[in-house]
């Protein structure tokens, strides 16, 4: 709990109005920021006094019908403090560019490829932004809410 309070204070002190919102659902701190500040804030969190050195997960949510439509979610973990943190940033549908965090965390490479594959978010600065799960020739991004439920894209001709 004191970790939550401490990180909330240090973030609001350093970034002031760049931190849009801080919530604490079920005891986990969730920080809402803007897309253009995400790299700066993650860098601040990773470096020494904060020391959230581990990227546990990086994923995306599609809130179809809301604005902004997509939301990137970064889960980071501090090994020295044994504390978890969640950072979110909205991504509007007409501007799907998000800065890549591959330079900070190596494991972000595949996580970002997965998000690109499933949601079509473009990560600027990613070394090799290809599909991770779906095959070449697959059209669309299957975890988007507007992907047709029954749509199949077989690679070979199916029997009757």
């Amino acid at each position, binding site marked *: 709990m004191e970790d939550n309070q401490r990180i909330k204070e240090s973030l609001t002190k350093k970034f002031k109005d760049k931190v849009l919102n801080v919530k604490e659902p079920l005891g986990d701190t969730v920080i809402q920021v803007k897309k253009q500040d995400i790299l700066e804030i993650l860098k601040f969190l990773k470096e020494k006094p904060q020391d959230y050195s581990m990227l546990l997960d990086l994923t995306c949510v599609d809130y179809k019908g809301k604005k902004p439509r997509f939301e990137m979610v970064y889960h980071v973990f501090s090994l020295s403090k044994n504390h978890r943190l969640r950072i979110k940033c909205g991504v509007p549908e007409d501007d799907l560019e998000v800065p890549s965090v591959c330079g900070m965390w190596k494991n972000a490479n595949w996580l970002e490829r997965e998000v690109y594959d499933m949601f079509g978010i473009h990560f600027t600065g990613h070394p090799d932004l290809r599909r991770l799960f779906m*095959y070449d020739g697959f059209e669309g991004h299957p975890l988007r809410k507007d992907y047709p439920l029954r749509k199949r894209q077989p*690679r070979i001709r199916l*029997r009757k």
Partner: protein
Amino acid sequence: MGKIRPIKKHSYYQKTAHGGFIATKLNYAIGWGRKFSIFHYPFITACCGMEYMSAACAHWDFDRFGVGMTTFSPRQSDLLFVVGTITHKEAPVLKTVYDQMVEPNWVIACGACAVSGGIYDNYAVVQGIDKIIPVDVYIPGCPPRPETILNALLKLQDKIQKQKQDLRWKIIKE
């Protein structure tokens, strides 16, 4: 210890073996040979593989029925054991493996995913492997019990015994 029971004079064995030959149909004899010498190729992609391993190893041991020879080359196998979820990404691989098998061959779809796609009714999963290759025996269950797998193998043996055997020399002649 009880005393040893003597063989009855007119027992079945004496009657048949007396003349030194047995009479049967060629089709039946070939089926009998084929059904007890099934070499199977396990195409395992998911959790049903655990049940397959259990059925194949010492506890249930389907080698008792003459189907225990595992080969890891489809070219030397008679039975393709498709165990687990087949995705659209993997479908061409399964098709290639099936095409490499020599005739006569049989296919078993093991588990709900291989039979019908199972719980995965989504963009990624083939809704039953019979959309790609012909299937002889379907094993339901998520995952199936090893007893179900044994039962399926016995069913397949029945099928092999009863089917019209394709004879290689006849095919070449035609």
